[in-house]
């Protein structure tokens, strides 16, 4: 636990470096983003992902279901989910994101998808994708945001 804290502190030290890069290379970063899609290569997101040991859900009372609360708190996202295939077949928020207390994952990994979608298991080495979410939107699940 101590080690984790130290590492997180270390990441704070890295921020100025990234700020430097971000400023110096705005143009090229944009080019990169355009070239390989906005979901990838976003440096700040990458920083968040690599640095986070365990995501934390806001401390709420958890007396109602994820969806019931998020319908009010984040209606856009809740709506996207509701109209997606996951919404239609009732694969709820908690399946991908955890329950919010014992487990919480902001950006679910491919392994989580495969548990239910094993036929869709992809050998990414021959593709340009690194995870299911390289191509599928996390909430609408649509391919390339069609």
């Amino acid at each position: 636990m101590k080690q984790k804290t130290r590492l997180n502190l270390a990441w704070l030290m890295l921020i100025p470096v990234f700020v430097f890069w971000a400023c110096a290379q705005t143009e090229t970063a944009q080019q990169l983003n355009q070239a390989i899609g906005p979901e990838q290569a976003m440096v700040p997101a990458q920083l968040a992902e690599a640095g986070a040991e365990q995501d934390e859900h806001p401390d709420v009372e958890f007396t109602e279901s994820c969806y019931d609360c998020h319908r009010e708190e984040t209606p856009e996202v809740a709506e996207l989910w509701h109209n997606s295939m996951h919404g239609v077949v009732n694969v709820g928020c908690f399946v991908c994101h955890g329950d919010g207390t014992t487990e919480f994952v902001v950006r679910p990994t491919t392994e989580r998808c495969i548990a239910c979608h094993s036929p869709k298991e992809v050998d990414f080495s021959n593709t340009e994708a690194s995870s299911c979410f390289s191509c599928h939107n996390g909430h609408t699940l649509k391919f390339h945001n069609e």
Partner: protein
Amino acid sequence: MDRREFLKATAASAAAASIGVDLFLKPSQADAAAGVTWHKSVCRFCGVGCGMMVGVKDGKVVSVKGDKESTVNRGFLCVKGFYLYKVITAKSRLRYPMIRKNGKLVRASWDEAMDLVATKFREVIDRYGPDAVAFYGSGQAETEETYIANKLFKGHIGTNNFEGNPRLCMASAVGGYLTTFGADEPVGSYDDLDEAEVFLIVGSNTAECHPVLFDRIVERKTKDPHIKIIIIDPRKTPTDRVADLHIQPIPGYDLAILHAMARIIVKEGYTDEQFIKESVNFSDGKKKISYEEYKQFLEKFTPEYAAKVADVNPDDIVKAARWFGQSPTAVTLWTMGVNQRTRGVWLNNLIHNLHLLTGKIGKPGCDSLSLTGQPNACGGVREGGGLAHILPGHRKIVNPQHRKEIAAIWKVPVSNINPKPGKHTIALFEAVAKGEIKALYVMCTNPAQSLPNLKKFLKGMKDVFLVVADAFHPTETTKLADVLLPAAFWSEKEGVYGCTERRSQYMPKLVEPLGEARWDGDILIDLARRLGYGKNFEHFKTPEDVWNEYLLTTKGRDMDLMGAPYWRLKKVRGLRWPVPTTDHPGTRHRFTEGDPLFPKDKAKGRRMYFYGKPDGRAVVFARPDKGPEEPTDAEYPFALTTGRVLEHFHTMTMTGTVPQLVRAVPGPYVEINPKDAARLGIADRDTVKVITRRGELELTARVIDRPREKTLFVPWHWSEKLANLLTIDAFDPGSKEPEYKVCAAKIVKV
């Protein structure tokens, strides 16, 4: 790889990930590197029978994923299955035997606990006779476990007081299949779902209760929007998301709708006259009637009449009948909304009627397919003979020949088997309540939560000498126990499950049982030995030995499984009986040419021969339309119906241990229609009291346009709010299945 190399690889991977490239590992390599091995198994939850790959590492189950080789789920899992592996090590697992001493359950040794059970059972049998003891099993136990218990209780102790929870869920479907087709279990299979162009879903919330099959239906609908999905259900459910038409009757008044559909099918000429001529008889339930007399009977059931009875739109009935009749294929699916009714068997008959009249049975895309609620209700209990009136291999206790055949396999004198059926579930627990049954062995189920009208039964269960073999504690039932025996859970034991579509599937033992838990089969064999019947059980060294003996009971029967020994089941993704030989692929449609038991000589060119009936003809029934046992009235103006949510399974002993599932639906509630709520001044999340003639319950109101007006819905998962304190224990006179789905209630704001 040294540490420096490792750090470099990690850094490179992170870079790769940022541009959408996986640099090093394929998933399978990642598994191997992590030390995970994958094993083919079956899901522990509902009756769909999803194939599951179980990941094991260092003697622990660490993960599951859908088995993509499985024809049932093709790799998909629902949210319950996804979290199943977490249940194995749940805090609520019972880890050692316990005995009640001075009113408290205390830890005991296996020897002490088993000695107590044997002594007490022996004492009761010797003093009061064998019918003073009883067994209550489960559609979640393995076939092997139910078989051993059956052999012990019916064959050696000599009592037919042997029931199981499938009585509460599938008995009416059994009654329907037996009376209509002459043989239990569906004619077709899941394959028909992929070819059906009309789905009629009656009293089934498929989306939440059989999610993986619902996925299959959604996939069909997405690929071909022209297919029609018709729902008959008093409550809108998530299944409606794909529905083309929802007929929402008053709970308990849907029989007339099915008759009205049949009438339109006959009137407008959607019948298959050739099929009717060859393969159908008509009956009023007492005697054979003619086709003409049946048509006469239907005359009463105009769409307007049915619409009035059920308070629905007559045009919808006409539309549903035309879609069903005009489509070349149709599958009907149903579950508890049809079965848990005082006229459950009749309703089953009426569904089969539609398929028989139109000949939409026994061919691709056509079936009347009863969805089962438990993973082994079909396999262990219906096929294994785990109820008070049946014996293994679809045999009946009252049939002397059947008793003789089973006695021979059990190596007991035929006189050991009582020729009189035992007490069905409600009668059995009534006998417990009256003190007539003095010792009860409960295996793998939770009747103190799942029986209807609980108040009537709880005291008796507390007073009786109650032995509970379960993997979990506390449950409502274990709290009442005198002896608790810790049972091995899924993946801690091997055995066979048989699902909805007649498919038997093998589950391996992958890890050692938690704590001192033992395989239920082993516990029962131990009990048999201590009761002095060891000789006929000592050859059961492994579950496979039990399965091999069980197979003998299926030989030559309609559910012949001789072609499904362990070695084959370990290789294949299950087999659909009849499968008489090890080179037989299993059967997709019964009673047709593809069925190995199809008697070509008798069929004489007919497409189907229902060999369960003496003349090979299935029966279309002219059953009267009858309402529920307890209609609503001025004092109790609401119809109360109970049911389930996707994330939980039955009494929550499993799903309640998974935080993610608990979070999804955190607590009990009652659904009420917004119009009713407005009239009564009830707002969403108000505390309300639901009252029936049997009990009352304080619940949070969920004001939602799901139940129709004058209908309340309460999910029954939560032990802190026992929905079954409210339900009625009236039961179907044929199937003895209680009417959980309808009783009269009132609701007041607290």
